[in-house]
């Protein structure tokens, strides 16, 4: 029972961060939300007894996805400004 509650809390966090990606108009905020989404997804994979998938998601989502999105956002800005 209590494992089910943990599952539901984790999935609620996942859906909330996905909605955050949809809701944010600021692109860098959306990239931050995508990072949080990736972390929680990896914890969910760990809960589902898939440590290989969890570590792949952690390694990919922690550094590489955020890096690619940030580079793309900076590379398509007109002013190259901040915030």
């Amino acid at each position: 029972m209590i494992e089910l509650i943990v599952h539901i809390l984790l999935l609620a966090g996942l859906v909330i961060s996905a909605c955050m990606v949809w809701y944010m108009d600021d692109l860098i905020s959306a990239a931050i939300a995508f990072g949080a989404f990736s972390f929680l997804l990896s914890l969910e994979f760990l809960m589902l007894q898939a440590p290989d998938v969890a570590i792949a998601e952690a390694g990919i989502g922690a550094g590489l996805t955020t890096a690619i999105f940030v580079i793309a956002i900076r590379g398509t800005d007109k002013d190259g400004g901040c915030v």
Partner: protein
Amino acid sequence: MTDIWVLALGLLLLFVLGAMVRLWLGGPTAPDRVVALDAVNTITVCGIIVFGVAFNETVYVDVAIVYALLSFVGTLWLAKYIGGDL
């Protein structure tokens, strides 16, 4: 003793949701959101360790090491963008 660890895991996930409130509703600027993301990272590492103890999965702590080693790379990229260095 197992119930204590699972309860701690649930509480940590509640803390993650609390940090996500700052990430979504609050956070007038992007640095606030990066701070909230850092909190999510740290609490998630604690959650993985507690998970490994709660269900007696002895080798899952390796995932926590990878998290702790790698989660700050994303933070550094975001900080570099926000600071205007990139």
